[in-house]
């Protein structure tokens, strides 16, 4: 089986990700020592407190005997040795106004290590390169404008001498864009937007969509009411690169504002998947997954690139757990959807239209201005917020899922500078049954191989290594399961909820290490921290309502005042 695994740096919706080819960029992630037999012996080596109370998403970067942690906003980039001693620390200047745009808990991701440099983005819109050895800032560019409502959430993607950076700011009505910077100097090479005229979006002769609906000039303008595309949203999600095809692939966020009646039309190029030429940014293909997005789903979820046979033919696949609840498998050369199956209970979308690839929406769950639609599943947060992983040993895709539903009442919303024009009342709900699950998806059978149910939604990424599935939960449990069966093998109780992704590596001493950031936050963990009053059901994007229900109640107030890095080691 020509199976090739990629792992990525990611983050969370709204805040997002950057993927990286793990093999070339970070420490090799398959220490032979960490496996089914040894996991029970894993023990905590040391912890490092970041002193930052926000949610800690993503993963640290590891190189040799150094671990690099980018703390949440206001950021600090900290280099630690393998004993947990601080080597150096870079504290970029921060613009506190960014906190006003920090939707979904304002979690960020990074850093990314490449060629001896750490690349990172800051919430307040800077992209930076820092020498890994010394902590010297190589370059620092302001690429996103807070005034326009833009922030940076995803870790950058570094590939082929270019640093790809995607904006965030759908809820502020900012037009999403993807920019490529020169990795040496930080100079901007190109910038492509998710809405607007073809020239700005990068639609040109190279563009060939698998679906006829995408043909036509200036769809980024013409599928909107006049001028509405100027506040259209559609910020990129985690970015993946396929060096072989020379493309970068990412999903775009939801259109702005939430109220669908304010933006009739299919609202190109939001809520869909883009493949762009890695060198020029020209669009190769676009596949809409939630055109005229009525539920603020977007399509900016973390994806996986998988090369494997599909119905007998070797294919380059894109595995996309769409926020509408369907796991979509696409051919990443053409953007054609090969398969779409629900991975969580869904009712908003009943299936996909074969001709256009567009979701078939259930009338009962459509939304309209000033009208409440109840019990839409999944919720706007989507089923998968954090990085899935491909288990090399089993071939299963390990998906950390949440099963939240929502009540949604879109309302007219104006574009007022400096404010978030969400314009919707929303309450998240925990449906009957478990609120989350780790789903091991068998691509072959297009069905789950096994499901490990969780009382709380899963909001952190999964690490697949040595036949294990390792992930953290909102109530601070770090768990290791047998990737073949889902059997629980090991569990550790962290001081705070985990929304980060564990990383495993072998130290220069040859011992197997496991590192993970703990610090609850993000769209699904925000309410556990201070600053949110859950008496208001609509607080924190409606999360407060879910928190008032069920198991969530237990984690209230358990957010540590500081996040921490936990480093485990096999003896």
């Amino acid at each position, binding site marked *: 089986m020509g199976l090739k695994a990629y792992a990525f740096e990611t983050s969370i919706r709204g805040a997002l990700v950057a993927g990286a080819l793990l093999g070339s960029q970070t420490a090799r992630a398959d220490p032979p020592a960490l496996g089914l037999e040894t996991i029970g012996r894993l023990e905590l080596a040391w912890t490092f407190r970041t002193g930052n109370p926000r949610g800690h998403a993503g993963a640290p970067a590891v190189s040799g005997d150094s671990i690099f942690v980018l703390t949440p906003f206001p950021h600090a980039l900290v280099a630690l040795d393998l004993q947990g001693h601080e080597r150096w620390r870079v504290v970029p200047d921060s613009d*506190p*106004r*960014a*906190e*006003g*745009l*920090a*939707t*979904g808990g*304002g979690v960020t991701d990074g850093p990314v290590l490449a060629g001896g440099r750490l690349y990172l983005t800051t919430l307040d819109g800077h992209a930076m390169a820092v020498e890994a050895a010394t902590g010297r800032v190589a370059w620092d560019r302001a690429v996103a404008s807070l005034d326009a409502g833009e922030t940076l959430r995803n870790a950058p993607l570094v590939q082929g001498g270019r640093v790809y950076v995607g904006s965030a700011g759908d*809820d502020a009505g900012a037009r999403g864009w993807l920019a490529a910077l020169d990795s040496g100097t930080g100079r901007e090479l190109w910038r492509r937007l998710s809405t607007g005229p073809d020239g700005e979006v990068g639609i040109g002769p190279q563009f060939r969509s698998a679906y006829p609906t995408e043909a036509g000039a200036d769809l980024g303008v013409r599928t909107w009411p006049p001028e509405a595309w100027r506040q259209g949203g559609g910020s990129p999600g985690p970015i993946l690169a396929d060096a072989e095809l020379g493309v970068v692939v990412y999903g775009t966020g939801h259109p702005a504002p939430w109220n669908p009646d304010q933006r009739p039309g299919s609202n190109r190029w939001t809520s869909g998947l883009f493949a762009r030429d890695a060198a020029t940014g020209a669009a190769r293909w676009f596949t809409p997954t939630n055109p005229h997005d009525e539920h603020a789903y977007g399509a900016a979820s973390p994806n996986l690139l998988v090369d494997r046979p599909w119905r007998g033919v070797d294919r380059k696949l894109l595995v996309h757990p769409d926020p509408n609840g369907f796991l979509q498998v696409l051919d990443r050369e053409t953007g054609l959807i090969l398969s779409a199956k629900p991975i969580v209970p869904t009712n908003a979308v009943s299936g996909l239209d074969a001709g256009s690839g567009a979701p078939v929406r259930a009338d009962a769950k459509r939304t309209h201005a000033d009208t*409440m639609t109840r019990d839409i599943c999944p919720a706007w947060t989507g089923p998968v917020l954090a990085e899935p992983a491909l288990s090399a040993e089993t071939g299963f895709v390990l998906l950390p899922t949440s099963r939240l539903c929502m*009540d949604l*009442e879109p*309302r007219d*919303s*104006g574009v*007022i*500078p*400096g*404010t*978030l*024009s*969400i*314009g919707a*009342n*929303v*309450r998240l709900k925990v449906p009957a049954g478990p609120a989350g699950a780790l789903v091991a998806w068998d691509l072959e059978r297009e069905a789950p191989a096994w499901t490990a149910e969780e009382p709380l939604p899963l909001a952190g990424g999964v690490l697949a290594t040595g036949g294990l599935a390792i992930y953290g939960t909102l109530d601070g449990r770090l768990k290791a399961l047998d990737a073949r069966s889902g059997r629980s093998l090991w569990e550790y109780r962290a001081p705070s909820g985990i929304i980060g992704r564990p990383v495993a590596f072998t130290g220069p001493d040859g011992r197997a290490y496991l590192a993970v950031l703990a610090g609850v936050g993000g769209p699904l963990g*925000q309410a556990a921290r*201070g*600053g*949110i*009053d*859950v*008496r*208001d*059901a*609509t*607080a*924190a*994007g409606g999360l*407060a309502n879910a928190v*008032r229900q069920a198991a969530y*109640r237990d984690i*209230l*107030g358990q957010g540590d005042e500081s996040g921490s890095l936990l480093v485990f080691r096999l003896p």
Partner: protein
Amino acid sequence: MRALAPAVLAALAFAGCQRETRDFRTDPPVLAALDDVAPLPNRIGGAPPDVYVALGQPYQANAYALSEGKRLYDGMNCKGCHADGGGGTGPALLDGWWRYGPDIVSLYVTLRDGRPRGMPSYADKLNSEQLWQVAAYVQTIGSYRAATAATSRNDQMQSRPSENRGPARAPLTEPPSR
């Protein structure tokens, strides 16, 4: 006793009027004077403008002003960050544990000038009277004001007990020590 009755009645009448008057038009000079707040150097608390005192603090206990404040709270996208008082991207207002304190002048200054951590300035979006109305409404969210003149629920999604019901339920968590 005889003398008391009319006095009580007059007091009631006055209180009633105070809560219920609807002055739609404020003279431009008054509007300008209403902006003359004197916040303390740390911009927390301070003295309200003379005209505000002279008018008898016309917004904090006036039902119409509060309902206008609530309308503007919704219309000016305050909900985008603070939700219906529970917070989100911005801090919660419902708990009453406010970074810049519950003083009306603080609120006014917060709204007018913004605050460094993401709170935008509304000076170019609302006039001084409207700023007072929103400030007064926000005070009722934190239950700093008597409930009789406070607004009731909106014809929208139910999110929490409305301002006129005050702190109807105990919070599930202790207020954070901020």
